[in-house]
């Protein structure tokens, strides 16, 4: 469980995934969208299944880091 964060392109259809993220939130209120995103983060973190990678992603996601 010590993989590294892979930030190379990994999705086959990034435009479709991005659109699905946008569509999902289109009709949500701001609090609903917040909850949606938090649930999504937790689902994806578990799917990654590698604590070190999730921690690296948390660091990489900080707006002041990139």
């Amino acid at each position, binding site marked *: 469980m010590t993989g590294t964060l892979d930030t190379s392109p990994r999705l086959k259809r990034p435009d479709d995934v991005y659109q699905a993220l946008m569509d999902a939130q289109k009709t949500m209120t701001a609090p609903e969208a917040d*909850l949606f995103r*938090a*649930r999504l983060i*937790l*689902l994806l973190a578990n799917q990654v299944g590698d604590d070190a990678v999730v921690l690296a992603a948390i660091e990489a996601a900080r707006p002041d880091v990139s």
Partner: protein
Amino acid sequence: MAPRFNYLAYPYRRAADQDAAKPAHHAVVVAGGGLVGLAFAVDMAVRGHDVLVLDDGDSVSVGSRSICVAKRSLEIFDRLGIGQRCADKGVVWNTGKVLRGDRLVYAFDLLPEPGHRFPAFVNLQQYYVETFLIERFAELGRGELRWKNKVTGVASHDDHVALEIETPDGPYRVTCDWLIAADGVRSGVRRALDLPFAGESFHDHFLITDVVMHSDMPVERRFWFDPPFHGGKSALLHKQPDDIWRIDLQLGAQAEREAELKEEAIVPRLKAMLGEETQFTIDWSSLYTFQCRRLERFRHGRVLFVGDAAHTVSPFGARGGNGGIQDVDNLAWKLAAVLEGKAGGGLLDSYEAERIPAADENISNSTRATDFIAPKNAAMELFREAVLSLAEEHAFARGFVNSGRLSVAYQCVDSALASADEGVFAAGVAPGCPALDAPLADGWLMPNLGGEFVLLLAGIDPAPFADLPLRTLAVAQGDDRDGLIAARYDLATPGAYLFRPDQHVAARLRAPTPESVTAALQRAMGVA
């Protein structure tokens, strides 16, 4: 209904020390006769040492307070002579439910591993444990317990500690070689030495109530987030002996202490939870805010801090009382060894070296639980909602739900007292970790380890170790009734474990010699 607890007022008695021309000297004084101070006194008495315990009150804990007694504490209590009494009186519990609103988020079962003498937890009111310790201390007939004796002044010197003590008859002084500060979260000793108690306070108030009622509800821990009877806050229900139920209700940051503790404020809250028809009486109630703090050092020369005086945590996880009992377990044998001239004062430094990381682990766990239960900001609240809303359907999210991570024995694997393995142990109990119990043909392993250095030998002749300052315990195949010593200690092939007097592993060796065991023994005594 079982008889409820009858608080005795322990009498103040004038001591000869109060009439002495110059301050009387004691080897060891314990400031504070609560759970941890009493346990320390009994541990020293079991080891043959007199201690003087000073307590500013005249009774045991008022209210049930620390109720969840963990397995490791029961094992330590057994070494002190009250383990079976606690286990017999306590309520054993293994299951729990976490609810959100009126829906079950998940149920858990601690699934206790078979082959241990004591269960994972029993619930037992603190006043019972303290009473058992007081009785045990009297039975051992060593040392003295002085009620209504409050330590008001502490002067720590290179070769002694001088104490000022306040009593109903006025003040007096004593000196001692060692002062054990077990005087709780508001430690007077800590204040007298002007030591900072750094950490964090939580703003939420919690109403803690013991309710006496007949109920057929199962013996399980129930924790609610946002229950229908107490919207937006948390609630906890847990059974104690004598038909007493512990109820914790989160009240928020704005609660008014005086108003909330009035019966007319408490009763409607309890009726909302228990139902209008349920008959109950209130046995005890209190309003708390929680803190997570610790001293920077637990040893200050000849003053050693234990329990809440050294570190304090919120109650989620039962890490306060159980953490303090482990402090006692760690310190008593070391102080006894110093008093007996078998070890230098440096061994006492290992007390804080081993127990500060343990305190940090407890503080970290209880801080995280408190933050989950009473979120401090919008992000914490949002993610808690996300977790709780996922947990009912998705097993993975239950791992994030935190209503308290229950106390387990600290594993001091980085301890300077622990020796590196000699030979290969692919599994088993690593040096620094507490022993694991196992059934023997005629009893249990833990009581056989007792409170001294023990060399456990499997498939190895004990004769060469007869002259070492330890007890050998040869385990033949027939002794290991269920094969659990072989399994838990990786001793299917021959090998040896050296256990410390607090039943922690000091060393393990596949091919021990008197020389290698002596080296491990010296290391465990602080002669590295």
